[in-house]
């Protein structure tokens, strides 16, 4: 998926990106050497638990890093050009026109005292230089696109239900015709039926507009529904990356396997879901070697001392010593 032949076709490349957050003189590493490429129109799920770095990764791409974040190494390239992700002003032309974000809490992200049509029109005026009239027309089109009758544009956010507000957020994200839309847990606050409606809408818009979609979520089953590819993050690193069907059928990294086993699935018969032993990692005292080794049931000696690199494995990539050795064994057998 990341082999060199695809590099040219990549819309976005993240290359060895590490970001630290400074706090009272202590710095903690939020993401550590994250590398991946995203093709136009591709839907990728970025899955991890709290503190895994999924949001930091996505916000770096969107140019929305918080002021205390520091890019300590690596870079992000959009259509081959390096993005100034740590320069707020220089990122301005990129935001919304190339990459936009659908945030989680629509109620907090929308301005309560403006009608929604005005809020959607605003980026069109600022970014695309439209007149107020043109922008309003565009906003009405966008509302229809996300399944809200254009006349509802006169409503204020509090007059809409949670699902409708999330649709407004999607309309805003699409306002300046971006090629990448990042969904930051876009359905977490919604009920299951509304969630299904929103995921379906995102899928339709994606194929209609050839959008690349990065879906940040802690919920693997949401990814299974609407992504082609999934990247599993743990403590700031990508531990596994591959096609959704492949990863769910044959997870390679022990963490991925445990995550899948931790979700109840009636199709698999009634068995108690298995907890992942141990506690989530503390980013200030990051374990040596593989970050997952203190919780890993299959850890071996080398896991505590050496950081496994994310290497190509089958169709995907995995960062696990077990996998590397078994693959090498297989290679030697074949040779």
């Amino acid at each position, binding site marked *: 998926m990341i082999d060199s032949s695809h590099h040219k076709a990549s819309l976005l490349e993240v290359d060895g990106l590490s970001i630290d957050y400074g706090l009272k003189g202590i710095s903690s590493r939020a993401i550590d050497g994250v590398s991946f490429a995203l093709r136009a129109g591709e839907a990728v799920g970025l899955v991890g638990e709290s503190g895994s770095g999924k949001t930091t990764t996505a916000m770096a791409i969107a140019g929305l890093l918080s002021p205390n974040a520091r890019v300590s190494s690596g870079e992000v390239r959009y259509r081959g050009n390096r993005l100034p992700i740590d320069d707020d002003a220089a990122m301005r032309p990129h935001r919304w026109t190339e990459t936009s974000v659908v945030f989680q809490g629509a109620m907090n992200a929308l301005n309560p005292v403006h009608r929604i049509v005005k809020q959607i029109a605003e980026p069109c005026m600022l970014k695309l230089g439209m007149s107020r009239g043109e922008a309003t027309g565009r906003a009405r089109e966008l509302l229809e696109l996300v399944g809200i009758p254009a006349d509802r544009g006169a409503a204020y956010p509090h007059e809409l239900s949670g699902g409708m507000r999330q649709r407004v957020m999607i309309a805003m994200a699409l306002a300046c015709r971006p090629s990448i839309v990042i969904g930051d847990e876009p359905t977490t606050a919604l009920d299951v039926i509304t969630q299904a*409606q929103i995921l379906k809408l995102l899928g339709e818009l994606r194929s209609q507009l050839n959008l690349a979609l990065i879906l940040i979520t802690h919920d693997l089953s949401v990814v299974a529904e609407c992504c082609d590819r999934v990247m599993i993050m743990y403590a700031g690193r990508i531990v596994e990356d591959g096609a959704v069907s492949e990863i769910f059928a044959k997870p390679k990294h022990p963490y991925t396997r445990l995550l899948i086993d931790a979700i109840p699935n009636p199709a698999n018969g009634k068995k108690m879901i298995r907890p992942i032993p141990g506690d989530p990692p503390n980013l200030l005292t990051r374990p040596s070697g593989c970050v997952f080794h203190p919780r890993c049931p299959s850890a071996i000696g080398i896991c505590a001392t050496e950081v496994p690199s994310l290497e190509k494995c089958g169709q995907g990539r995995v960062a696990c010593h077990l996998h590397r050795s078994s693959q090498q064994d297989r290679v030697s057998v074949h040779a």
Partner: protein
Amino acid sequence: MPDTANILQLESLQVHFPIQGGLFDRVLGRPAGAVRAVDGIDLSVGRGEIVALVGESGSGKTTVGRVITKLAQPTGGKMLFEGRDMTSVQRASALRPYRHRVQMIFQDAYQALNPRHTIFDIVAEPLRSLRLVDNRKQLADRVSEALASAGLNPPGDFFARFPHELSGGQRQRVVIAGALAVKPELIVADEPVSMLDVSIRAQILQVLVDLRHKHNMALLFITHDLPLAWLIADRIAVLYLGKLVEIGSADEITFQPRHPYTVALLNATPQMGGDAGRAEVPALQGEVPSAARVPKGCRFHPRCPLAFDRCRQEEPPPIEVGPKHLAACWLAN
């Protein structure tokens, strides 16, 4: 089933919140409306049984939990605890023995714990206020026992710590320990794991399931997540707009749902196995109507893909569709 076999019984339970009309409405004599949060629910929980109450936001599931723990007062119907009518008991002294036996676990452990109290004080609080211990030694023993049952080991390590020093999963365990300290017979757990990371959820669920095995404790598990309900519960009750639409064993509800709403909920739940095994029904349109304007007839009919004339006129009663499996749908016959 005789009443004594059930620890808790709700009969036509109703909670209506009046809507205060404006001055204009009152002058014109317009009738004040009501939000029909819970609108006639019959539900029982047996000793040592785990019942899941499943519904979307606005279905009234949390209000049911609040009535059971006496945090909300019903406006109609009855609540029996071990056959005794607890509906109108409100005096604190009369409630003390009840609170001792029924406890609640809240969703948000960040808000449920007082940030200025130590873990010891938080867990000791119900023991002190219900006057269940005679001396400090007993208090310390009960707190240790509760923390250990909730999986916080060794308990002594947590006594002097404050909530902010703990992880999310540990905090939720402290909330559980607080509920366990009084050795209740029924716990009402309102979305106890929905704020937690996936890897922590299973640990908390295991604690709850163990309690049933060890202490024969009954659990009313309130959730919006059907697969989770299926995993943990013996029976599932599906709530829509203040009324039960279907109730039955966890397996029957999951694998042989009879009410179109249950079917829709199951279909909307994202699954890792893709679309295999999903019923061929159109996705639901629209959202749950306001409980202040409950539709006439079957309250689900405006969104039901299978609705016909009768559904718009008459409200369907619960119909037995299998052993202990009821569905309130005209099509379930």
